Structures are given as C-alpha cells and as structure tokens.
C-alpha cells in the first residue's frame, strides 16, 4: 500500500506530465478574470457595474471547480503544493462563515448586501480562486492583454458618464475602483519581457494610470501609485527587494495619517467611518458581526455614536482590515492578516517584483476605499501567488 508521501509524489508527477494543456486553459481563464472582468456591465440588480461582475466571477469559479473536480490532477496538484498552515487558514475562514450562520441570517451571511453581494459565498469563491488561479508566460506575463485592458480603461473613462461629483468611473462604476484597477494592471505591462526594450509602451503603461488618476480624482490612488513607483525606482537603483518593499509599505502606513491631519471638512468622514467600524467590531469582538453584514453593523454603531453616518448608506469600513474586523472579529482579522503577511513573505522569497508592485498599489487602495469585486479578484490572485 502506498504511503501518504508516495501518494503526494505520484499526484505531483501526474500534474507535471498530464496537465500542460489544462494549465494553458487555466491561464486563459485567469487572464480573462483579471483583465476582462472590469469591463463587464449589465443592467441587473442594484448596481449594473458590480452585480454582473460578481455573478460572472462566481459562475467561473463554480463552473471551474466542477470541471476541475473531474480533472483531479490539477486540483490535487495544487492542494498538494499548498502548505498545511495555509490550508488550515483557508479552512478556518470557511468554518467561520459556517459558524456565523448559526447566529445571524444564513441568507445574509452567504450573499451579503444587494449592492455588492460580498458575503461568505463570494469569499469562498475568492479563496478557491486564489488556489486554482494561475500565472503564466503565454497570456498573463506576456503583457499584451494587460496593455489592451489599460487602453480599454482609458477609453471607458471617456465614454461612460461621470459620477455625481464629476469624476470618471468607466465600466467600474466608482472612481476609486477605476483608479485601483489601473494600478493593478500597469505592472503587468511594465514588467513584461515582451516590452522590455520598448520604452514607448512602458511610458504608456505609466501615463495611462496617471491620466486616470487625474480623471478620477482619486487621492488614495496617488498614494498607491507613488508607493509603487518608489518601489520600482528603488529596485532600479539596486536597493534590495526587502528594503524597497519596506519603504513602500511605510509610505502607505504614513498615508493613514492623512485623513487625520487634513483640515477639518476635507477628509473628515474617513476617520468617522473608521471610528464607527471600530465600534461596530467591538459589539462582537471574537467572531464578528458576520460576513456580508457590514452595512447593518455600521448603521447600528453610528446610532450608538450618534454621528453623521446615521443619515447615509454606508456598506463598507473603507479599509479592508477594518472590514474583516467588523465582519469576522478577532478570529477573522487574525486569519486574514496572517494570510496577508504569509503571502507577502512568499512573494518576497520567490522574488516576485511585479506581484509585489501590484500588492503595494492594492494595499493603498484597499486601505481607504470599499473593496469592489475587481480589486478583490486581483487581491486574492496576488495572495494565491504568494501562498500556493
């Protein structure tokens, strides 16, 4: 009878031998979800920009899992390569969602609110996405589709109408999400070997995000792009990867002071929302208020604090760590933070400079804004590269 280690070796060998074609398919699907999902718009539900993207993403993951479960080789190979600690963290997040259904409405935990559909089911799909998604040299790293996506973002920002305050939203529906998507995509072009000796393309790779920053008026994207450019610049100066990354992260952390130091009335509502989120999390500090229940939790906390958020519909803490605090409590925040740190360490060990550049931009955007499905897909893809 084969031992477990022999079974693992056999599974890995089967992956290497038998699934080259399947990996190519996975790369194409991964590329489609990374670069084409931002352009999906359809008039269903409360938000034509957000809802159809969520549904298509979940359809891709569920359908992909059905296919992959029949193609055991890829799935088993990826699961074999995933460290036990990471598997335990993933299972912990999954079980937290199940556990919360015993205390809150299962429907709400599973599906989230009707504006973003960011409940436990989407989270599970994102976890599966981080495992089964892939990088690759044929489509993703080649940079062509990324360059096309950048151009598409720019064109969409001109064609689609502006937000109420005159900011471009493109096919993402929100100015900050449009800017975040640009920050996610430009490194794919910048670091593509295909464009290494094409300075005009590299210039476009940076110029388009800069233009989109102007059109969207996103201040958090200025911080994100700034930290990315500093990181890339330091690497170019032969500063070590770790030092460059630390400096980039310090820039993002220092930017947290911005909302508190700006003149009252400029950005005062971010500290207000953050304060409300901290209070909301304290209501259920261990297991949180439940995935997908941020809106209700913030509303209740705003009444406890009798602050101005009572009069607005706020369904996000405008910070991804605070969102996990509100929804998952100490358990959820701990699991997520550990995953994030472990993935970052993995990216550093694997010297994935492009992915670290993307991570810096996402970290800045997710520190000040609601997470849209597009930024979450990119974020969990990056996590997967460092973890799996």
């Amino acid at each position, binding site marked *: 009878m084969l031992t477990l280690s022999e079974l693992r070796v056999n599974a890995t060998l089967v992956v290497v031998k038998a699934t080259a074609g399947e990996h190519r398919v996975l790369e194409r699907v991964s590329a489609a979800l990374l670069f084409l999902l931002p352009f999906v718009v359809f008039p269903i539900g409360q938000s034509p920009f957000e*809802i159809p993207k969520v549904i298509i993403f979940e359809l891709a993951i569920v359908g992909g899992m059905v296919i992959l479960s*029949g193609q055991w080789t890829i799935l088993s190979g990826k699961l074999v390569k995933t460290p036990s600690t990471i598997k335990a963290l993933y299972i912990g997040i999954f079980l937290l969602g199940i556990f919360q259904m015993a205390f809150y409405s299962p429907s709400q935990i599973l*599906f989230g609110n*009707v504006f973003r559909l960011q*409940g436990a089911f989407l989270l599970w799909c994102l976890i599966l996405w981080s495992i089964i998604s892939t990088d690759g040299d044929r489509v993703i790293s080649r940079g062509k589709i990324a360059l096309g996506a950048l151009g598409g973002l720019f064109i969409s920002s001109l064609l689609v109408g502006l937000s109420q305050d005159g900011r471009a939203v493109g096919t993402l529906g929100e100015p900050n999400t449009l800017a975040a998507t640009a920050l996610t995509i430009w490194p794919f072009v910048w670091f593509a070997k295909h464009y290494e000796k094409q300075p005009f393309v590299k210039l476009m790779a940076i110029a388009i995000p800069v233009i989109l920053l102007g059109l969207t008026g996103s201040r958090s994207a200025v911080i994100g792009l700034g930290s990315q450019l500093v990181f890339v610049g330091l690497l170019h100066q032969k500063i070590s990867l770790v030092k460059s990354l630390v400096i980039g992260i310090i820039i993002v952390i220092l930017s947290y002071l911005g909302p508190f130091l700006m003149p009252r009335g400029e950005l005062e*509502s971010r500290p207000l929302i953050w304060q409300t989120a901290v209070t909301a999390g304290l209501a259920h500090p261990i297991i949180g208020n439940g995935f997908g229940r941020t809106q209700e939790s913030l509303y209740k906390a705003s009444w406890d604090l009798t602050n101005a958020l009572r009069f*607005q519909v706020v369904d*996000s803490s405008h910070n991804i760590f605070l969102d996990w605090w509100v929804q998952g409590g100490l358990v959820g925040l701990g699991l997520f933070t550990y995953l994030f740190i472990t993935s970052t360490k993995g990216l550093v060990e694997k010297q994935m400079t492009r992915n670290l550049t993307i991570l810096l931009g996402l970290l800045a955007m997710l520190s000040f804004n*609601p997470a849209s499905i597009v930024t979450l897909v990119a974020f969990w893809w990056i996590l997967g590269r460092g973890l799996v």
Partner: protein
Amino acid sequence: MNKRNVLTSIFLLIFGFAILALQTNKAMAYRDPSTGPLTNPISYFTVSGSVIYKLTRGYVPAANVTVTAKSQSGTTYTTVTGNDGFYSLTVDGGTYLVRPADAFKSIFMPAQRIIEVFSNLTRVNFVGIKS
C-alpha cells in the same frame, strides 16, 4: 473520470449553482435607484445660526423653532432651536434650502435661505414676527 470525481462534480454542480441562483435572484429582486451605498467618503459640515423674534420693544431668542435644510436631491436635515435661539445642523456638502417654522405659523425674514455648503457656515440667521 472515476466514480468519486463524478459524484464530487455533481455535488458541486448542484450546490454551487443553487447558491448562485439564489444570490442572483436576490440581487435582481431589489432595485431602488434612489438609494445606494456610500462609495466615496463625503465631508460633513455644520450650518449654524440663530433665530430671533422681533417684538415691539426689541428682540428675543426664538426657542423651539424647527429649522429644516433640504438639499437638491431631497435629503432633509432638521433641528430645533434651543432656549437661546441658536441651532446647529450637520449636513454633507451641497446646496440647501434652509427654512424655519414654528408652532405659531410666524412669518420669518427671510422666509428661506439658499446656502452652498462647502465649509462650516455660521450666522445663517432668521428674524421672525409672531402672528
């Protein structure tokens, strides 16, 4: 494809698509274009002032006067003056129609004020004549 994989596929097919169908149904059943979540943090400002009554021999503070600020989008903020006639409203930025009203149906001057709120505003005052 062995029996276990087939069963796993069927289970994932039914479970996954059932949840997806329920979620899509929930999303499509709710459509209210007048509401939406806050996607960009907005700034709040205070609008304050005083309301006084003009009497034959001078002025007195107007207590318990309801002051309403209504935005172009229809959002309404309301407060009541204190015993000293002062009021303070916390509103988000924009253009507002501010109007006082009391239980005596007094005439106020001006009857309403249009203000543009992009910073804290003070001295949004009214003078009332009791009827």
